[in-house]
């Protein structure tokens, strides 16, 4: 079972890096949906190979929200604003990818420094989680379009979710449900706001939102 978990986690990591190099919004949203499927698989692969009801609930709700609802919602928003192939990054894509790889190295190095005291099923949980959080933050900083920033935020949230899953055996599941709920509510409201941005500017470029300054 450990190899399956390892493979899934590595795929998540690769999809995060792939996101950094993508120029097309539509492709990025499809990658997010794919990542949602991967994350929904993880709770189905517990240590002893016995499927719990708790794990099943988490898996189904992750699939529904991360793999279906949010990507649909994002692609709806993307269609509305006709974002083409405009450069959507403050730094070149190659540089972003290199930075992302550096972050992966750092997170593996950091994860070696401390071990979680809980029994984990794979040694990749912590480094993948840390890397996703850092790549998410990177995307939030370097991307210009509001939708791309939301995708960065989702990558960050997914990284946190991975850490939460690795501790799932010892933690009450309310917390994870809270994650999903808040994730959805957050994007939902961000989506409403994105609609408003569109009404004012016909475009979701956050560079428009730089009037308030000191």
């Amino acid at each position, binding site marked *: 079972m450990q190899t399956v978990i390892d493979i899934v986690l590595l795929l998540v990591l690769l999809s995060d890096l792939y996101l950094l190099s993508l120029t097309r919004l539509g492709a990025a949203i499809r990658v997010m949906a794919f990542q949602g499927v991967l994350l929904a698989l993880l709770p189905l692969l517990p240590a002893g190979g016995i499927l719990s009801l708790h794990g099943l609930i988490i898996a189904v709700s992750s699939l529904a929200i991360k793999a279906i609802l949010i990507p649909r919602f994002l692609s709806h928003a993307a269609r509305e604003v006709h974002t083409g192939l405009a450069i959507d990054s403050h730094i070149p894509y190659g540089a972003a990818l290199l930075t992302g790889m550096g972050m992966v190295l750092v997170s593996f190095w950091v994860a070696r420094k*401390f071990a*979680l*005291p*809980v*029994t984990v099923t794979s040694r990749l949980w912590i480094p993948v989680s840390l890397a996703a*959080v850092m790549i998410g*933050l990177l995307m*939030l900083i370097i991307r210009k379009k*509001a939708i791309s*920033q939301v995708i960065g*935020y989702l990558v*960050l*949230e997914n990284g*946190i979710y991975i*850490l*939460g899953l690795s*501790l799932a055996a*010892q*933690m*009450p599941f*309310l*917390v994870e449900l*809270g*994650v999903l*709920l*808040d994730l959805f*509510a*957050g994007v939902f*409201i*961000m989506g409403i*706001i994105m609609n*408003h*941005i569109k009404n*004012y500017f016909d475009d979701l470029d*956050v560079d428009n*939102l*730089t*009037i*308030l300054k*000191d």
Partner: protein
Amino acid sequence: MIAAVIVLPILFSAAAWLVRNVRLRRRLWLTCSLLHVGMVISLVLQPPQPILGGWLAVDALGLLFLGIVSLLFLVSAAYGQGWLAQAHAGTAQGARDPERIFIVCMLFFLSTMSLVVLSHHLGLLWVAVEATTLASAPLIFFHRTVHSLEATWKYLLICSVGIALALFGTFFLGAAASAGGREGSLLLDGLLRLGPQLDVRLTRIAFIFLLVGYGTKMGLAPMHTWLPDAHSEAPSVVSALLSGVLLNCAFLAILRAYQICQAAGDAAFARTILLIFGLVSMLLAAVFILNQPDYKRLLAYSSVEHMGILAFAIGLGPAGYYFALFHALNHSLTKSGLFLTAGNILSVFKTKAIGEVRGLARSHPGIGWAWVIGFLAISGTPLFGLFISEFNLLGVAIFGNRLLSAALYLFLITAVFIGMAAAFFPMVQGRPEEGAQEKLPAALQLLPLLLFLLTFILGVHIPAGLDELLRLGAAALGGAQ
């Protein structure tokens, strides 16, 4: 009773959504605030047992902050009655939809903040803090302008990222709690009881993430960037609540994390970080306050400064805890009063530019005097509450042999004082320009003065009951006061 404090505003919020009558809806806001104050008083007089297996409980820290939430919410509800009547007197019935969402979100905001202060489970606390963001975003967007949209977008995105990092920290805390095969729990009391058994390396990582996460919401520099925009674009009554109440709720969340570090025997590490964040926040605030052209942004940066003072006060160690809590209370009273006064100035002059407001003392003596008194109160002039905490904190720093910190603190407070004086006095003095002759209802002018009176009374005499509450709160943080 604990549950009622949280559930009642939600019920009123639902009622406000259903009610069509504009006047009745405004009265619902006021009624709910009155009932909330009543319930909080009964909680103070007779603290109930924890409910839901300890997830919701009342302790000294919670009571103090709940009292601030409830009192300031009542004042802003009272102010809101007059403000909504004034601001929306001319609009047609159909265009009043923003007001409906406004009151619904306002009441929901009250519920979520009550949940923050009452929750004794760190997962629930996190959900509650996130809920405050969602409840307050529509409040900032009330005016529906491009500027308020930008402010709301920044607020949502930056605070969501902050809150995500806080969750990361919460998970590390969970890992610390479940070390060695224990059944992990994020109950505050359970974590405090575990104390030294917690793995210090994990609680350290947890504390850093919790501080950065909740610190974003609290407005500690350099994560404060949403704060000036949100405060300047939101309606003043919302700014008053954001500064007076919401920032405090985030501070309480950081105090909870600090309590756990204290129990784990690692308080010195947490204090060092808090001290640094505190001084950096004060420095950044001072830089932006000097030559600030917008008086609402000025007040927002002043909030960053005072949040810095709070972090600094905890960073000074046990002798500072009592004054940190006292400072939080007085800052809330004073800053809310100032934002309400700023709202009055804005509705008379229709501008947020300091340079375009002249002669307040002659044209509108009520507002002008409130602005001067508010300035004296916020800058820690003797006889006001903030003087007691700021002066004593300087003493704590000097006698604790932290001379460099004390010198920096004194220098930054002085710089802020100069910057604010240079902005406030020209607005009051001079000859008023023609045109700004609009009169405001007396109630709108009196409510800020009421808040300043309260902080003045606290500066002269701290009532025994409050003193005991502050001592208990300081003791809960590990202080000897």
